[in-house]
């Protein structure tokens, strides 16, 4: 059974269509890049997969079930914003994850916080923006989940933090599970991707293996992406090709 199946998935916000007839199957044990320019529907697709949004039409199944209590138990989600309450200390968040997720490894999370120089007694709101993001990523990656949904984990951080984030993902994910990383900063994750999903204006343009895509096009995925989404080049930020 595929881990994720979307059939004829549509999502509209009022008159605006965010996803148009998305058909997608995602297997297990892979790192997949969900690549597309800003506003292409990446976040909407991720939110539908974890039940934060309901599709307007079509079906979504995660591990054979529509998003609900069962699917949420096997999904580890990193949103593109801070989602903890202001009053929480790092230790409160650790308690919280330990209380609600059976697959959460508290010891590992504590030692990762320590290596970041973050005390578990620190108040979350007093941490620097970078450390808040790192703690949130640590919590998400210290779960032995089946599906990691990481929404723009490397957007808006400096290159050193990007390296930390990618290393944390690679060193900690459950290898039997799948990691879906949405981003428009392709150069940074090019080397780690097994598969690529290219999305534009709410439509899936391609879903292929990263190697096949490079072979077919004879270019790096980053270069190909820049050609495909020419108008969005500037948003991508780094001009390495």
């Amino acid at each position: 059974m595929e881990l994720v199946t979307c059939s004829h998935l549509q999502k509209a916000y009022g008159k605006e269509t965010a996803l148009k007839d998305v058909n997608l199957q995602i297997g297990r044990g892979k790192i997949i890049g969900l690549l597309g320019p800003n506003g292409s529907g990446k976040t909407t697709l991720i939110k539908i997969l974890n039940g934060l949004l309901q599709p307007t039409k079509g079906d979504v199944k995660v591990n054979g079930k529509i998003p609900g209590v069962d699917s949420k138990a096997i999904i580890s989600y990193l949103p593109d914003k801070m989602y903890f309450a202001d009053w929480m200390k790092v230790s409160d968040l650790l308690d919280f994850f330990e209380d609600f997720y059976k697959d959460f490894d508290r010891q590992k999370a504590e030692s990762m916080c320590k290596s970041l120089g973050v005390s578990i007694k620190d108040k979350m709101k007093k941490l620097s923006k970078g450390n808040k993001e790192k703690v949130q990523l640590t919590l998400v990656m210290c779960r032995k989940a089946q599906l990691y949904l990481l929404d723009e984990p490397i957007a808006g951080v400096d290159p050193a933090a990007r390296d930390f984030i990618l290393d944390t993902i690679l060193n900690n994910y459950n290898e039997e599970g799948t990691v879906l990383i949405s981003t428009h900063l392709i150069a940074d994750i090019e080397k780690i991707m097994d598969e690529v999903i290219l999305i534009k204006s709410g439509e899936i343009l391609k879903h292929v293996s990263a190697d096949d895509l490079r072979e077919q096009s004879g270019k790096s995925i980053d270069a190909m992406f820049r050609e495909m989404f020419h108008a969005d080049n500037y948003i991508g930020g780094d001009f390495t090709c």
Partner: protein
Amino acid sequence: MLGKLIKYDIKAMSKIIVPFWAALLILGWVIAIQNHFRKVTQFSTMNVLMIVIAIVIITAVFVMNIVIVIQRFWRGLLKEEGYLMFTLPISARNLIFSKLISALLISLGTVFVIIFMFLPWILIGGDLKNLIFAFRNFDFNNVKWMISVIAIVIAEIASSIYHVYAAMAIGQLSNRNRFLFSFAAFIAISIIQSILSVLAMDVLGFEGNVFEDDKLFYLIVSVIQCVIYHIITEYLLSRKLNLE
């Protein structure tokens, strides 16, 4: 799981409300001690000032209570924190129950604190004998009456909380201004509720006096309101959730 959710909600709410409760209790003692030593029998300036301060703080605590009940639901489920709460392996029903039970407990806590605020008056003011006398001569036939009034008060508070929750659950459907839409939904629900209550009382011939024989009617109405508001809230948050 519900117990764990309630634990976090109570913790979040108590961080804000407990200092206000403490202020009320301290003020209760200050007023009682001041009255005792000054042997105030008439309305002196100081006495009036103390009463005004007490009324202001009691009002502030009530307002704060309402604000945190709304805030815990709005920020805790429908803003950024919602991304954490709605991705937990927990049903929307339990998330709503947790918010409701913790809001109810905090609201009852506020009521008790206000009652206890007047305890020093009785203890210091020499009215203790009267209180003991009143307890000794308490007519236990009134217990049934008291229990039914307490049940109505709890059901009324619960239905008021649910009313606000349902309005916010409707408001979050808007893609434009979710807060304004929630406010409009609150007013619309109030109007519908008033019309239905008047119609129901008219049809069933009730007088509208909660202290007389209509207590059961009031209790049933509040429970029905709770059930309807819960169904609306749960349906919208589980089937039509629209996090920004």
